[in-house]
């Protein structure tokens, strides 16, 4: 069970990475459970940035649509991979 504090910290840490990874014309609703619609190039950039920023490694099973559907899903995946939360 993910701690709400850890999740909250991870969501906050995720924001600047999302901002750097997304194309300028991609606008995402700013809510943890809002569905995101990423492009393939954004997924590639985001995975690489998350690995670099949080010192984790995404396996092929981690790079799946359900793990990138919302901010919360990404944050939970990062925590599951052992990323330090904040």
């Amino acid at each position, binding site marked *: 069970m993910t701690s709400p504090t850890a999740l909250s910290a991870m969501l906050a840490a995720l924001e*600047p990475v999302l901002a750097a990874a997304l*194309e300028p014309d991609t606008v995402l609703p700013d809510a943890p459970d809002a569905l995101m619609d990423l*492009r*393939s190039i954004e997924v*590639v*950039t985001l995975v690489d*940035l998350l690995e*670099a920023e949080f010192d984790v490694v995404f396996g*092929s099973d981690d790079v799946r649509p359900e793990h*990138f559907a919302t901010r919360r899903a990404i944050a939970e995946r990062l925590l599951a991979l052992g990323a330090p939360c904040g």
Partner: protein
Amino acid sequence: MTAGLVELLSPRFTLHMGEHALGLDAIARHARETTLPANIAGRVVTTPARDPFEALRYIEACIQADALPVPSALCSTPAVLDERFTAIAGDVLVLRTSGSTGAPRHAVFHRDALARSAALIAADLALQPDDVVGLVLPCDHGFGLVGQLLAAAMVGARVQWAPGAFAQQRIAALAAGGATVLAAVPFGLAQLLAALPGCASLPPLRQVGVAGGALPRGLAEAALRTFPRVELVHQYGCTEAGPRLTSISSRNPAFWTGSVGRALPGVSIAVLDPDDAGEGELTFASPSAMTRYLEGAVESAQAGTPSASGRWLRTGDRGSVTADGLVFVTGRTDDVVKLRGEKVSLASVARATEEAGAEDAIACCLPSESSDPDGILAVLYAGDVSLSPRDLARSLPRGVVVKRLRHVSQLPRTLSGKVDRVAAAQLLTRTADDHPAYRP
């Protein structure tokens, strides 16, 4: 009126995008209805689209308007634009390419060169009207646009666009569409292979083309283990070439020597200033090559006598050609690396790091500890600033990220005062715990 591009393509060609099946008539109709945005000089301002329908519509509309598409990024100086970037009749496409200095350049293509190039590639790949070409590449690069979309359209093959954001989605779309032919950059192929175990069904592939970077032997072997009946085709070229220069099949024993194959029909390849081992810069002449750069005249490669194929152009790649014509690419003549199919200038990455606040920086490409065939981009920097990979993301080509960014009190230097690239790479390879120069 100039004949349109669609008039050169097979009337059988159909483009499948989701629920839509589009033929040439739809593309031509939409092109006629398209009002291309004009810049101040009255010329077209747009960029080639990643979406295949938009890309075809765009090229056709440019032919009908007899206007050259000029990337909007170049339009900040309209007076210069008006003077220097006047369209020449028949030039219909501009593709962006990373220059060896990191400053992008824009290669201009004539309609006939595009058609020649697409026909040449279709013949080399033996594309057939009953093939289903699975398109996962963006169409703002020569590989996807000419090497797949137009090549398929030339022979009347069906194109199945499979643009999913995730490899699993792309595989599902390829399988549903019955793709028999696929092409990818090495990283994209590695992604697809890694995602296959979780997929319910696989496309009935007969051929996979790979270009846009070195094809590691391990990746080729993995692809053939997964698809034992597939023919792998390693293709080599560059944007300016239109884009293909050589090709080799995995069924050719020379494929496993690391050669990128022999020059395609009509293409000439020569080595400029070869050393004792026969290595030098690879130059080429091809009837499919670009007309010019938007930014100015094309520098002549001066590689011996002019070829029947036209001017000699530089590739920036280092390599050799054997007596029987096999081409080997061994690296670059500059500090450009290929990542995710994009050329990335290490000097420009270092500059971007300095612009972000570092006093001094050097960029390297290191072997990846994972299965990433491209290696990883790494930067060592000094200065009173703490930088993060996300600080540099906007300065790099799409999809390219600095995976390792490390701070040192000062960059290692040789006795002559130059930054010591070997020592820098060693520092970047070590972990922070290994070396006292790192400042956490």
